[in-house]
């Protein structure tokens, strides 16, 4: 399969990329790592006239320490995020999710920002980003703006990134010393999750003092399981207590029904995977 014809430009700065995007208008499409876009182009589900490649913009690559947050450049590959010590030490649930994202070859090419901007509800990065209150820095011709994770994911494959804008980096508040786990339920290797749960917890003396839980593929966007978070705080990190708190994981969700399972099955799965994820995150 071969994509339809397109013009191609590979700018070396964000400013040049924004100018190219403005010039292309509705016919422009950003390519980051291309691991989701290229299959779409090959199957001709989309046929942009101009593809703007961010792969030559070195400034968008890498992870840096920014005081109380870490900042992940949008074009940082999954493989580089996975091996990064700043991410591991301060946002461990991201590490745990990336570890299970796709396969090694895709992790070499695919990018952190590209996957989040693609906003596949079954994508592995949305739930952990949401759970950690990530902030999305979006550049436009008028300058940059920052969007909170709660406002970033709008709908299926739709984010707060407007036409003519580019996601440049993602800021994640540091949570050193928190336990984390990403529990992903799949039938076969290197597949999108049927449901997955991202859990990050702070445990003090056997008691959960803070908890963050994000759900993957339980609706048109990644979701926060706030009722579970609230029920966990102040509870012991035991199977019984976590099981009780996880029981509400499916509340307020609107998961899809497909050949892998109907919505009710997914709601049940969410409670089971939440319990497993939280217990593993708490070191249980």
């Amino acid at each position, binding site marked *: 399969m*071969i994509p339809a014809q397109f013009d191609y430009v*590979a700018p070396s700065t964000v400013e040049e990329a924004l100018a190219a995007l403005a010039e292309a208008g509705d016919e422009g499409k950003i390519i980051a790592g291309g691991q989701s876009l290229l*299959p779409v182009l090959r199957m001709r589900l989309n046929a942009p006239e101009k593809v703007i*490649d961010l792969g030559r913009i070195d400034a968008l690559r890498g992870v840096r320490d920014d005081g109380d947050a870490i900042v992940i450049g949008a074009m940082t590959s999954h*493989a580089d995020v996975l091996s990064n010590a700043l991410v591991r030490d301060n946002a461990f649930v991201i590490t745990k999710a990336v570890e299970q994202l796709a396969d090694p*070859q895709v992790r070499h090419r695919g990018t952190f920002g590209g996957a989040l901007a693609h906003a596949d509800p079954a994508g592995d990065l949305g739930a952990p980003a949401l759970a950690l209150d990530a902030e999305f820095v979006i550049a436009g011709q008028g300058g940059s703006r920052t969007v909170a994770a709660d406002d970033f994911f709008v709908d299926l494959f739709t984010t707060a990134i407007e036409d003519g804008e580019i996601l440049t980096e993602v800021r994640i508040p540091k949570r050193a010393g928190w336990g984390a786990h990403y529990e992903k339920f799949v039938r076969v290797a290197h597949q999108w999750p049927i449901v997955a749960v991202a859990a990050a917890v702070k445990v003090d003396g056997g008691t959960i003092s803070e908890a963050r839980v994000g759900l993957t593929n339980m609706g048109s966007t990644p979701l926060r399981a706030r009722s579970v978070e609230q029920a966990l705080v102040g509870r012991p990190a035991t199977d019984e207590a976590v099981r009780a708190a996880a029981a509400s994981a499916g509340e307020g969700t609107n998961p899809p029904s497909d050949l892998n399972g109907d919505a009710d099955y997914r709601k049940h799965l969410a409670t089971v995977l939440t319990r497993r994820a939280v217990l593993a995150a708490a070191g249980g």
Partner: protein
Amino acid sequence: MTRINLTVDGDTYSDDVEPRMLLVHYLRERLGKTGTVVGCDTSNCGACTVHLDGHSVKSCNVLAVQADGSEVTTIEGLATDGELHPMQAAFHECHALQCGYCTPGMIMQAIDVLNDNPKPSEEEIRVGLEGNLCRCTGYHNIVRAVQVASGQEPKPASLEGSAS
């Protein structure tokens, strides 16, 4: 057309390509390097795996223009002076191929696994190869070949069911 300059298996090339040309098609149709194969054409099976600047990628999911300025290694660039690469030799010795179609990608990914982790456990090998499908389902001997190539298992003296 876009001009690209790249190194493939140690040789430098300079070519005008359509931006929509996939790296695997450039390798096969422009350079004649048909050792790299197209399997599923949907970036699932890993048969088209090559190394791009030292890291494994699925070449059906990379544009040739994205490889501009890069160094590409294919299955055809592994042997030196007629000597098989140790991973190729291990696949041969362990009978790690049946129909052989997944083999170029399996070998390229297996080398990438050892580049990251020279002494992987069996589980780590299986996880490292999860993006490569063998429809003969001959995974057992593939994993064994990687264990042999990593020096963790002795070379097999004889093979059950081997045609040789």
